[in-house]
């Protein structure tokens, strides 16, 4: 976009040493957390601390080495923050395993560590195979198609399955998988590829109403389609969270691509209509909103919808207070699904507001680093992908943490990197790999394209660059 912008001539440092230092701190969180769980719950350091710590350290170091080799200019903060969150999540899942009395091989923490390993392998694979993110633009429509297919998969009779009222899982043998998480990444790529081509048409035409440029009716096609897809997810799969996430994601990318707030007005209006209709017409949405407004009226209801999960989480977080009860001294197991959707409730109870704040700040850092990458990225596609990934992250964290803390109605989404769940963990590691790839491209010095017969003016600019 802006090779000519003098600001872009600034050369970023690689900062791989800083990344390594931060990674050591992240490992202290992960391994220290695991040891603290053992001491707090069982009164002794877990016997497998060396094996566990070694495995975690090996994974983190491998990721670091891959970044060093394939993306030397990549952002140094992203990987450590992710490592810390993933390590903390493992420790909390391990603590909940102990409360349930799960044995090692079957335990959620053990499975999560396996998924993390797969996540790091895919992370490395993405960085090694994808040397330039712009290659992804070729797969705009393929990605879109695959994303739609993935979203439809749970509806198929043989592999799809209802879990807790939501039809968002597929089962193949003993493996279960949430295709929506992967679809999220593919949708970002598809949106970015589509919008970067059609942004001018979507941006220029329109009429002005009350200081806002509204788009033409005939350009409403894409947003209308996305709106219908989101509503379809809500109606047929009962997945409020994903529906919200996909529509919000599309809206944000449309706004960023066209630079026209008018799209936000149109999208916001469509969202309001959809939300109101869903509240009025869909029973499960009505229940969610009513529980949100009056959680204590639905607590321990024996028939109909109940708010036990939400209220127990609120009791737990209040009981944790500022500093938390400490691992082993709370009762996070009172919250059903504490290891997946409600892991923030478990963290709030045993580690307190302090840790909740720290986790939110960590997510904020990931989003900030993603958006920073989008700002300095030199190509429109990269900007859109980075913005989309960062904003999808922000929306997802807001929707799930806000739901658990009763800021907004509860929707089923995983807490990135913390929650137990393979598809989510793997997809989020790939998201980080993509962000690192884009930031490596963006921070890398501009290749010196000047040839000896270039004119003087250009050569002088090159000379001014700090080396």
């Amino acid at each position: 976009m802006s090779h000519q912008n003098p600001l872009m001539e600034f050369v970023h440092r690689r900062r791989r040493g800083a990344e390594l230092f931060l990674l050591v701190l992240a490992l202290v969180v992960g391994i220290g957390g695991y040891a603290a769980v053992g001491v707090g719950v069982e009164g002794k350091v877990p016997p497998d601390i060396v094996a566990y710590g070694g495995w975690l350290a090996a994974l983190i170091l491998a990721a670091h080495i891959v970044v060093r080799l394939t993306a030397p200019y990549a952002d140094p903060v992203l990987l450590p923050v992710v490592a810390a969150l993933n390590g903390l999540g493992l420790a909390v899942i391990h603590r909940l395993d102990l409360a349930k009395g799960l044995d090692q091989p079957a335990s959620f923490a053990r499975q999560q560590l396996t998924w993390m390993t797969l996540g790091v392998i895919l992370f490395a694979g993405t960085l090694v195979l994808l040397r330039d993110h712009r290659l992804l633009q070729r797969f705009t429509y393929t990605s879109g198609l695959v994303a739609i297919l993935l979203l439809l998969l749970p509806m198929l009779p043989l592999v799809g399955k209802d879990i807790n009222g939501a039809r968002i899982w597929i089962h193949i043998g003993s493996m279960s998988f949430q295709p929506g998480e992967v679809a999220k990444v593919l949708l970002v790529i598809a949106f970015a590829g589509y919008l970067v081509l059609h942004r001018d048409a979507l941006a220029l035409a329109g009429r002005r109403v009350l200081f806002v440029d509204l788009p033409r009716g005939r350009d409403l096609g894409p947003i209308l389609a996305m709106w219908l897809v989101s509503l379809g997810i809500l109606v047929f799969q009962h997945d409020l969270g994903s529906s919200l996430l996909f529509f919000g994601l599309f809206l944000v990318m449309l706004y960023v691509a066209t630079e026209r707030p008018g799209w936000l007005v149109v999208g916001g209006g469509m969202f309001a209509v959809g939300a109101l209709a869903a509240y009025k017409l869909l029973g499960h949405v009505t229940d969610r909103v009513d529980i949100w407004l009056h959680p204590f009226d639905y607590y321990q209801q024996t028939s109909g919808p109940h708010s036990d999960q939400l209220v127990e989480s609120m009791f737990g977080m209040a009981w944790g207070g500022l500093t938390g009860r400490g691992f082993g001294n709370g009762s996070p197991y009172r919250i059903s699904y504490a290891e997946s959707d409600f892991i923030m409730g478990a963290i709030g109870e045993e580690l307190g507001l302090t840790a909740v704040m720290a986790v939110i700040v960590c997510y904020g850092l990931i989003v900030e680093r993603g958006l920073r990458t989008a700002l300095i990225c030199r190509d429109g596609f990269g900007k859109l992908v980075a913005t989309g990934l960062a904003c999808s992250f922000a929306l997802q964290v807001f929707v799930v943490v806000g739901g658990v803390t009763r800021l907004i109605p509860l929707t089923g989404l995983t807490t990135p990197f913390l929650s137990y769940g393979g598809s989510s963990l793997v997809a989020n590691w790939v998201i980080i790999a993509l962000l690192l790839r884009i930031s490596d491209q963006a921070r890398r010095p501009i290749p010196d394209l000047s040839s000896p017969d270039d004119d003087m003016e250009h050569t002088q600019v090159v000379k001014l660059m700090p080396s």
Partner: protein
Amino acid sequence: MNKPIRTMSLFCMALFLALMVNATYLQYVKAGDLDKDSRNRRVIQAAFSRERGAILVEREPVAASVPSDDVYKYQRTYAEPFKYAPVTGFFSYYSQTGIEQSENEVLSGDDSRLFVTRLLDMLSNAEPKGGSVDLTLNRAAQDAAYDGLQALGSDVEGAVVAIEPNTGKILAMVSNPTFDPNLLADHDLTKVGKAYDRLNKDKSEPLLNRGIQTTLPPGSTFKLVTAAAAIESGQYTPSSLVPGGSAFDLPDSSDTVGNWQGGSCGADQITLTQALEVSCNVSFLTLANQLGADRMRKQAEAFGFNQEYLDDLPLQAISRYPSDMDRPQTAMSGIGQASVTASPLQMAMVVAGIANSGIVMKPYLVNEVRAPDLSSLGITKTTELSRAISPRTADELTQMMVSVVNNGTGGNAAIPGIDVAGKTGTAQSTPSRPPYAWFVSFAPADNPQVAVAVLVAQSHTERDEIAGGALCAPIAKAVMEAVINR
């Protein structure tokens, strides 16, 4: 595209700020309210999961926490529930009463004196424990008092309080009807709720500690206070002649008051000692009328009326000698009627004061508080509440009270070989309900070890047989014997 990206970053920041503010609201601002929610299992779990300290009587627990294998780690159990419930109170999910409430901080381990213990527990990751509370109660006296009341029927309404005169130690405190605190300490909260509702609605008020929480007209036992005021005034000695006869004309009124069950007190002029022996209403109405409201009130207050003095149990009812009584009421107060009301504890303190040469000791129940490692955190120091009468007056009153037991209405309290000082009482409230029977006494008269007050407010006894001497004196005798023969 950078402008909308910057806008989006502001939007994302707003989202995260909203999350942080909301988390702070939930975990800091609203936390206290959520912790207080009666359905919040975590709070009760914490209290039930902690080893609460024991309540001890003569080093044996009457309330203790034993390991439990259900949802909570410890179960509160009461060894002799009915006998000690008025003192221990109960420890339930919903509330605490009695010593369980007043000493809750020590028992739960939250007391500031246990700070070092708590800190060490935290550092060593040990389970926090509560301290124990050792009571002043005397097992033999408590048994005698409880058995004595029970002998009148399990639904008898009454109370017994015994005090060690020279310290103020409460040696026995029994109230009936009573309840089983084990039912309220149960871990099945539905059962607890039902049991509590039933006890709370019961017309016989089993949750009430009648020893300290009810005040009733003290009747003739209050004549001790009138006699004390008379002798202290310097105008009377035990051998002074006072009016006897069979009726007293109330001043400023056309009413006359007779003696209990009619009759005369023997002669028109009798000695003060004789007046007390036969509990002559006419004599004490005359005395109170002559002494006046001020003198009478000051004497009553010197024994503890109109004050709160018991720190160790909550909800103490204040015994009253009102300050705005007119002349007929003042006269009536001389025989413990009108608006004069007293708790059994208060009447025990009156006789304990007489027994202790006029010095009323502040009553107390908690003898010693101990840390979980049994090291002492403090032994209660005895304190003087007041000097109600001079040692000489106390001596003279003691002789008169011994005479009551030896020659008068208190014969049922006599212990062979030991001088017992006592006074009966039968108080009217309303004509529709039976009178209250009282007996107060101490023994041995020359070296008092125990002072007792017994109240029976309702029993199966026929109305005209209700008298302090008949119903209450045998119980007082048993309690005194239990302490003396130990």
